[in-house]
């Protein structure tokens, strides 16, 4: 029972922390670019303001346009509730394994893209087209990476993956190295960060995610933004769970939970830092270079799988 309570707590924590992570990344970036940036908690202010503002709907907008934010947000929250945050063995973890998780994101993206097409402006269509293209290239790579993991740990359940890795003494799997790199690239693409997409711009030729939500206002926009923040956070947690599982709590006793929470905090702190550094260092790439980028990700994951088959099975 307290497992369920813990799950709810975790989910709400996730909701609360997500903007902070985004804000943190933004802040670091500003600092790195020696700008006087907004404080890390700026996203909270934005969301609060957006929720207060009125909604302006385009005349051509259909019910899809109004439903989409709720679905996108809801699906992302659900996905978040499945991913182990600072404790494993939560009952919610059984709802979905990694593949279902991918399915969740796909569902959200589906409605996001539909919403982009809905109003009938050129931007929205462009954004949806690009988003679907990128995702359709990203998904095989992601799945290949997940498969490589699963082949070693014999499971696609995040909880049992993490537990397996925790129980093992520290080992260096070549397959893990490859698929870690691959999945990192995929995560960058999926969360719409530089060099794939630039969340900070409204330059029409470069934006993907922003183009889709261009017509959104008020609480709809808030939900969309918040969903995006959650997504970033969830991907961070995923990478953390799979590649740096140490510190996560495997029981519901207070102390391990505390340790788990702190370790998560640390992980995300470092992750945001590295992401910011990377985004500062890199320039956004042309849209038609993205296939090469994701192809690289796929090749890395494929190499991971092959090295697992060739080197690690005996």
């Amino acid at each position, binding site marked *: 029972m307290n497992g369920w309570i813990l799950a709810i707590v975790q989910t709400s924590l996730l909701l609360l922390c997500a903007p902070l992570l985004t804000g943190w990344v933004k802040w670091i970036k500003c600092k790195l670019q020696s700008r006087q940036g907004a404080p890390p908690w700026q996203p909270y202010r934005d969301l609060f303001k957006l*929720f*207060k*503002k*009125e*909604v302006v*709907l*385009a*005349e*051509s*907008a*259909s019910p899809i346009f109004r439903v989409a934010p*709720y*679905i996108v*947000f*809801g*699906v992302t*929250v*659900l996905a978040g*509730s499945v991913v182990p945050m600072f404790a494993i063995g939560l009952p919610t973890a*059984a*709802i*979905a*394994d990694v*593949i*279902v998780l991918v399915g*969740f994101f796909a*569902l959200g993206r*589906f409605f996001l893209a*539909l919403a982009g*097409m*809905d109003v*009938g*402006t*050129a931007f929205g*269509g*462009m954004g*949806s*087209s690009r988003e*679907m*293209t990128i995702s*359709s*290239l990203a*998904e*095989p*790579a992601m*799945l*290949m990476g997940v*498969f*490589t993991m*699963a*082949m070693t740990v014999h499971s696609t*359940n995040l909880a049992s993956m993490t537990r397996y890795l925790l129980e093992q003494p520290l080992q260096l799997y070549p397959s893990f190295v490859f698929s870690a790199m691959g999945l990192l690239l995929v995560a960058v693409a999926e969360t719409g960060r530089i060099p794939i997409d630039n969340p900070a711009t409204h330059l029409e030729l470069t934006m993907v995610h922003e183009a889709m939500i*261009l*017509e959104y206002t008020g609480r709809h926009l808030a*939900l969309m933004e918040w969903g995006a923040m959650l997504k970033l956070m969830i991907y961070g947690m995923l990478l953390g769970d799979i590649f740096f599982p140490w510190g996560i709590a495997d029981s519901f006793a207070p102390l391990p939970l505390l340790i788990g929470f702190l370790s998560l905090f640390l992980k995300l702190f470092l992750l945001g830092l590295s992401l910011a550094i990377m985004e500062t260092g890199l320039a956004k790439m042309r*849209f*038609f270079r993205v296939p090469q980028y994701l192809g690289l990700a796929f090749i890395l994951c494929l190499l991971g*799988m092959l090295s697992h*088959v060739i080197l690690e*099975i005996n």
Partner: protein
Amino acid sequence: MALNLVYLAIVAAFGSAVLPILFCRSTVASKLVAFILLGISGFFGVLGGGMALLGKVDISAELPIGLPWLHCHLHLDPLSGFFLFLVSLISLMAAIYGPAYVREYQQGSQPLLPLTLFTGLFVVGMDLVMLADDAFSFMIAWELMSVSSYFLVAYQHQNETNRRAAFIYLLMAQIGGLFILLGYGVLASFSGAFDFSSMQAVELSPAWSSLAFVLALIGFGMKAGIVPLHVWLPQAHPVAPSHISALMSGVMLKVAIYGFIRFVYDLLGNIYWQWGVVVLSIGCISAILGVLYALMQHDLKRLLAYHSVENIGIIYMGLGLSMIFAGTNHPELAALGLIAALYHCLNHALFKSLLFLGAGAILQQSREHNLEKMGGLIKRMPVTAFCFLIGCISISALPPFNGFVSEWLTFQTALQGTILTNHILTALIPISAAVLALTGALAAACFVKVYGVCFLGLPRSQNCAEATETAYGPQLSQILLAALCLFFGVFPTWTVSQIENIAQILLPAGMPMATSHGWLWLTPVSSDVASYGAPMVFLGIGSAWLIVWLWLHPRRKKMEIRIAPAWDCGFGSLNARMQYTATSFTMPIRRIFRPVWFIAENYQQPGENAPGGRYQLKVGDWAWLKIYQPIGRLLLATAKRAALIQGGNIRVYLVYSFFTLLFLLWVVSL
């Protein structure tokens, strides 16, 4: 009991074929008779098939027709029951959908009788295929199905495209039928009898059984539409009346799958894993090419037809995995793969018929079949739009709808490849899984395009601007199908436990673990390997949505929604031509996967005859251009050359006969 119900279904379908002829005085009466009887047949078929599946019945019967020494054997078991269920379910839906849909044919010069007649025979044929228990009656039922569907494709024969499609369809159906016949012939020549029971009994040498397998693969694949035998499919399915397209695409392809499963799992018996590899790779190719070709289509029904190729590919992937496991004797995993494939058969039948019915509704209401002419229909046909949306989500394999479950099961099957001792397979199977992922993602992209271009945005043509919602019959059938899509997506555990009956008979093995955690959790292998709580997902998404909405609701009063024109960057008002079109939506994918299609683009600079320029895009199917057309040309050339022997000069003819005589005399006097 179950068998009698199926008999009733067949009789009713036959009645719906022939009785209207008696009522041909009034089209309305004949129409009603036909469709009511079709519905009755569907109803009884659903009952009978369902009972056969759930009750694990195993009934045989024999009718005093057929060859004098081989009477017509019938047999009903869970496998045939399952597919009977599919066929009857969709024909029931077609019966609900049809009456309003065929109204347009009534006022036209088109006589209605051929349609009803061959629809009935079509259903009869499909039902009989399920029941047939000997090669002869199987072939008769099979070809009855093919021929009657040919007449249905050719129904609106005033259009050149229909005639051409019908011809190609019948030709390939004929060839496929011959291959199947050969497959049975190989078995019969060893068993010495045509009935399936004796065919099961014989043990074939690997070479012969592999030959039989290949024949069956080609024969049934021709009907199922695996690449490169698929070319008839995107031509034939779109031109048939829409409820027929739903039947053809939704269940006729499944009948082919049924035949394949029956042939390989039941008749051939011991399966070699190499077959599985072949089937798996064919499945991968069909899936990926099918979806890529579908992406480039702008005719809605044609696009859906190519998606059938894709889904058949996915089913074959499941079958291939299952065969690999069966060949390396892991029966439980083989059962998992088989169940995944069968589940996908069910799902595809549901959502593909749903989509075809929706497309038919659009076609009927807006007279448009070209995506580029549609748009904004969600405002004009809300019910259709809603059901179509569910269809799109299901076919894009998104949770919590049914399409996702079967693909997830396929993934889970692929994941178990690690336990194989043959490491090449271990390496190949994940790649096939990646292909499946790519397919799913591209399908999602494709249906975003379809839904976005067709239902959202602004109408791109006057017809669409004036479209209205369809009649109640079509609405009802679509709603039912959509509900079923949701049902089978949310309650997979129960469904799997029922489909398991088939695996237990064919392999024989089940998946004890799959349903061990109660109705809530689906755990194919074990709970800590993978689990999917579909009801929870449904509830989760719903509750998250509800919470958010409730949380926002109190403020709603303070802040109404303001309706304003969309932001036009200050360039003046937006119009429909500014939207992204289907062509432009798929442009990035077209550019990335360019070699897959035959692409002819030409762009005409703005000139007097084309103000604003003209862009033309032609996307062709390599299989058609590179395999089928050359064969046709070769045939014609050969015929031209062969015609020389009929040169017209009688003395030359005499020379033929003269030298034939001399030659034979020489032969015998050797």
